[in-house]
């Protein structure tokens, strides 16, 4: 419990830092003295929404990865290695092309439904595969994702939409403004639902037979989990684009430290996800000031390094 309080304090500190890092000069002094109306505006319209978005998206994506790993019973699965994210992007493209007037919430729901369909397809393929080596599972997901991405980009190329597709594929928080990130609160609500159902997901992580033995309907638990994961992924992609590696590395790091009893580990995963996204975004804002590196890139670098460490460590552990 003390550890959790410390972790929460760390996230709050990073969030506070995020408020005061950027091109415009926003400091506590300028805000309090009221000397600069512009600084207050920047804080309210850009910095606070951006910081909330970072925290919500980070926690949501990390928890989504955790849920998917429990349901697929595989440590290498996350929304971007299970066809979920790619399907959500496909949904965003379709709704933008076919019904461009749709409001943000509607777009997100269409993307969510597509994400759900893609993930169900992924799990369906897994069910039919005779040999389920742990490494084959994410490879199947990555291949499925590549096929979906290929169709997305073909359509996008035909209709001159490649730039939008790139924006959904690469996470970037620089465009987050007040009025354009609020969907992520839906993601936060869903993360809370995931916490309420944490025991069910842990039981599902023990396998279908254990789940049935303990009197739970496995199919129903999986459905609940997939709906949460799909909608959170869709909300994040619709607001700021895909954040790679997050759903993979955070649950794995926490699993090593705290185990997989989701009632205990989920708060850690959420806090760690939020903290990592905040740190990567702040770094992206500082490295080539006054310009920015999108979080898709910084997280790609940090994430792949941590992932390599986990892989090498895991092999040593297994041997």
């Amino acid at each position, binding site marked *: 419990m003390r550890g959790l309080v410390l972790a929460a304090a760390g996230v709050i500190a990073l969030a506070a830092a995020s408020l005061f890092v950027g091109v415009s000069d926003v400091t506590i002094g300028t805000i309090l003295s009221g000397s600069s109306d512009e600084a207050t505006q920047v804080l309210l319209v850009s910095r606070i929404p951006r910081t909330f978005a970072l925290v919500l998206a980070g926690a949501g994506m990390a928890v989504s990865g955790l849920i998917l790993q429990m349901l697929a019973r595989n440590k290498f699965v996350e929304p971007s290695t299970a066809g979920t994210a790619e399907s959500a992007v496909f949904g965003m493209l379709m709704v933008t092309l076919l019904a461009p007037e749709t409001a943000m919430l509607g777009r997100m729901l269409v993307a969510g439904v597509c994400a759900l369909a893609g993930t169900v397809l992924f799990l369906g393929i897994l069910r039919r595969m005779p040999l389920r080596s742990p490494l084959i599972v994410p490879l199947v997901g990555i291949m499925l994702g590549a096929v979906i991405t290929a169709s997305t980009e073909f359509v996008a190329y035909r209709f001159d939409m490649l730039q939008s597709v790139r924006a959904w594929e690469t996470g970037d928080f620089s465009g987050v403004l007040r009025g354009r990130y609020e969907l992520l609160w839906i993601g936060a609500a869903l993360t809370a639902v995931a916490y309420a159902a944490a025991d069910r997901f842990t039981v599902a*992580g023990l396998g279908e037979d254990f789940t049935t*033995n*303990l009197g739970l309907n496995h199919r129903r638990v999986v459905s609940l989990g997939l709906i949460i994961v799909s909608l959170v992924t869709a909300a994040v992609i619709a607001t700021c684009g895909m954040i790679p590696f997050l759903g993979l590395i955070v649950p794995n790091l926490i*699993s090593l430290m705290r*185990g997989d009893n989701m009632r205990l580990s989920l708060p850690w995963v959420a806090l760690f996800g939020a903290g990592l996204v905040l740190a990567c975004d702040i770094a992206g804002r500082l490295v080539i000031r006054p310009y920015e590196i999108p979080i898709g890139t910084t997280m790609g670098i940090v994430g792949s390094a941590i992932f390599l460490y986990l892989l090498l460590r895991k092999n040593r552990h297994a041997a």
Partner: protein
Amino acid sequence: MIEVRNASKSYGETLVVDDVSITLPAGGVISLIGANGAGKSTLLSMISRLLPVPAGTVTVEGMDVTTTPGDVLARHLSILRQDNQMTARLTVRDLIAFGRYPHSKGRLTVEDQGHIERVIRYLELEAVAHRFLDELSGGQRQRAFIAMVLCQDTDYVLLDEPLNNLDVKHAVAMMKLFRRTADEFRKTIILVLHDINFASCYSDRIVAMRNGRIAHQGPPEDIITPCVIRDVYGVEANIHEIDGKRVALYFR
């Protein structure tokens, strides 16, 4: 009482359970024996609703296992299959605590804690209770799984080859524990066993399967005979009686 009526199940062309009808009375230790592929595990899975029952009916205490809500059944009957692969990193204590899920839905009461502590003590898991499952030996993990199922505290406990991975000492301790659970707590323990001598020494009743059918059933003295063992396994066995228990020697 568990009643199986005309239950059948096939995988593709092969009939694995062939029109089985059997009544298993409540109370005591019942062992299911038979050669590999005789249909023991499939029958156990059908009784415990892990597999659908495509033909026939299975009732536990009068409840049809295919229609009774899963959470109701989970308070009357528990099942542990063999070969449990576990990717989730849980501590032994957390795993065992999940055995209480059908009763408390995750909010452990004082009574639940009592069950958990008692099972940990009975299975001598105190020293590893705080360790993660993936840090344990195969035998310790097997005992943790059995502990979880016993913690569920159901009237019927079904175990598919529970002695897997256990050394002689722990296998004997496990069988004694099943005996004690049946005698003291009036439970019905149904085991799939490969070691017919364990079945002989600890069961009240043995059910022998062959080719998806019930070939023989009865108390150990009726089943552990050269004739039945030849019929079920196709091997010649010498039967000796030691301390009032029948032991089959089939090593030559």
